[in-house]
């Protein structure tokens, strides 16, 4: 929310000119590009877009791993990742240049969290943490855990990539959050909490020295235990005590991942649909990225309706359709033509609205290269579909 209340960032005065085009193939072919992060608000087609980009990069010779968050079942099946086991697996059915490869995986948030705990703590302590009711709730239902774990997994994949040379490009899909910004904020929020004042406060009794037990502390734990119940507060305290030695590690990891996102090898692609809400989120995200000095490669606008050929306007088409329907003659030529004209009018209206929205976005963010993905007549749920999407994105 902080980013929203701060000032908008833009050119202040619109300059007229063409919208710069996003060169997808240039981006994917560039050896310097090691991480591509696809972000955007929910329902704009991030997962399909990231899978399509990963496939295209692989078939152009990159060694790619794609981390998806929540793919449609049929798409997951066709990519061979319907088993949620947190391990990247080769995608069957690849073609193209032989040195390229594509692995895919689906994020298992709880398992990722568990693995971090297991890798950081002694087996004994790890078991203690994993069994704690508060940890179980935190690792499955805290709103920011998924974002945090996506970042954690990205860090792991990159370490793997560096040490084994198995991949030279990581494509990351981001969790379906309300706002695209959650993805940047959640890890910080979680590590702030794990490292923060409140935790130290909860730890105080465990550590003993009575002088820390100020009156303020008593009031707070008292209030808290009244609200959430003493049992839960005890769970939290046990969790915190067991987790204590890991906090520094978490903070460091979050910091490292954040730096990774700022590095030159990373590019962000903001995905949006040509709708006011999605483009508004995209605008916030674009502004935020520049504030954080994170490398934005461009905007992908999904499901854009293609402008129809010919010059028949929507109003003319509508008038024509009405004229045919008024004739009230029972001949199929008139009936079908009226239907076609109505469809055309509908299409023109949608195209007008979408291009208006896109122009408005471009006026506010003229520096953002944009790629347009036309709306398809059918859904995408196999490699052929992804290949088609990749091709259309590349223009």
């Amino acid at each position, binding site marked *: *929310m902080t980013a929203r209340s701060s000032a908008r960032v833009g050119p202040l005065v619109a300059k007229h000119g063409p919208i710069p085009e996003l060169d997808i193939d240039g981006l994917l072919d560039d050896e310097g590009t090691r991480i591509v992060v696809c972000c955007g*608000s*929910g*329902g704009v087609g991030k997962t399909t877009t990231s899978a399509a980009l990963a496939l295209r990069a692989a078939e152009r010779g990159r060694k790619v791993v794609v981390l998806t968050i929540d793919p*449609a079942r049929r798409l997951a099946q066709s990519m061979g990742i319907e088993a949620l086991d947190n391990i990247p697996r080769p995608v069957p059915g690849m073609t193209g240049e032989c040195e390229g490869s594509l692995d895919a995986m689906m994020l298992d948030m709880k398992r990722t969290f568990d693995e971090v705990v297991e890798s950081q703590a002694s087996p004994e302590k790890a078991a203690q943490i994993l069994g704690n*009711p*508060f940890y179980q*709730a*935190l690792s499955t*239902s*805290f709103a*920011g855990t998924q974002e945090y774990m996506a970042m954690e997994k990205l860090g792991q994949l990159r370490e793997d990539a560096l040490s084994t040379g198995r991949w030279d490009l990581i494509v990351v899909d981001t969790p*379906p959050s*309300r706002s695209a910004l959650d993805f940047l904020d959640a890890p910080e*929020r979680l590590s702030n*909490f794990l490292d923060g004042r*409140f935790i130290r*406060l909860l730890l105080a009794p465990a550590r003993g020295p009575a002088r820390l037990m100020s009156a*303020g502390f008593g*009031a*707070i734990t008292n*209030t*808290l235990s*009244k*609200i*959430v*119940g003493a*049992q839960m507060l005890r769970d*939290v305290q046990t969790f915190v005590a067991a987790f204590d030695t890991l906090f520094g590690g978490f903070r460091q990891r979050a910091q490292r991942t954040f730096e990774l996102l700022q590095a030159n090898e990373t590019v962000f692609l903001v995905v949006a*649909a040509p*709708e*006011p*809400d*999605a483009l508004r989120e995209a605008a916030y995200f674009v502004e935020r990225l520049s504030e954080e000095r994170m490398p934005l490669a461009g905007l992908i606008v999904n499901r854009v309706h293609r402008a*129809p*050929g*010919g010059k*028949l306007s929507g109003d003319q*088409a509508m008038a*024509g359709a009405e*004229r*045919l329907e008024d004739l009230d003659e029972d001949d199929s*030529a*008139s009936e*079908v*033509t*009226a*239907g*076609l*004209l*109505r*469809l*055309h009018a*509908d299409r023109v*209206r*949608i195209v007008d*609205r979408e291009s208006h929205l896109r122009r408005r976005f471009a006026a506010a963010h003229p520096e953002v290269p944009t790629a347009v993905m036309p709306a398809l*007549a*059918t*859904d995408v749920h196999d490699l052929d579909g992804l290949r088609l999407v990749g091709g259309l994105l590349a223009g």
Partner: protein
Amino acid sequence: MGEGEAVDWGDVRLHIVTGKGGTGKTTVAASLALALASHAKHVLLCEVEGRQGIAQLFDVPPLPYDERRIASGPDNGGDVYALAIDVESAFFEYLAMYYRLGRARKALERFGVVDFATTIAPGVRDVLLTGKVYEAAYRNRRHKNAREYDAIVLDAPPTGRIAQFLNVNSELAGLAKAGPVRRQADTVMTLLRSRRTAVHLVTVLEDMPVQETSDGIEQLREGGLPVGAVIVNQVRPHALDEEARDKAIAGDLPREQVEQGLATAGIRHTETLIDTLLDEASEHSQRRELEDEQRAHINDLAVPTYELPRLAGGVDLGGLYELAGELCDQGMA
């Protein structure tokens, strides 16, 4: 209504509207609120995700943590109030309701307890949000002069999270074994599971949203939560009959008929225009075919179904009235 008999939602006091991101959940919630209000009712429309989606739809300034009238009918006295529930305000209101806070508020903020309780502590956030909705629906004695509503419409979190969001009260009851949170959680749960509540799911006729709708219904039922209707949004126009659609897909729509039709309509026809129209028809028909497949899946869910058209010009206030009218015509309100 799609299949089956008309359903009377008259007993339902709390309409919870969920849907996958991008399906138009907020639009549908707002239309439903307007439709209910059109029968001279007082309706409260709530949002809980801090998005200010209602303010944007109705083109009014951002909503505070307070009930504001955002729409009223011409002469029948029906109106819609809106409330944007933010979790921090709900937290302090809740504390004020049960405890004398005094200076503790400052201490709570300073030590990050508010942050902890509202963002990290699992479930507390959702408990506070649902608790506030409950409070609005069933005013307690502390609010003697409070406005009473005939119906509440909640623009709820998305389908993937809805069962968890609504069931959080029972989950929390498991974690917090005593205390006022526990007591409140139990009361809220009783309302949510009663016949006074209906959870409606918004979808579009595409693979993934329909799948999520079906999963969502299953999860709601498992949680003992009352499934309301499925509202199919953004339905494409039915401009061609089935025969014409089949021909359009096969590329068999006769050009000369279109040419003749255009001539009758007084539109100058060019080869490009006819190609365009035939292409559009084919694309549309393919989409419609997929839509029909998805519609069949929805019918299998055996839940009352309503359909709202895709508004080519986008959703503005006029569009909302149009959609609300559709919901009334189809008997949802």
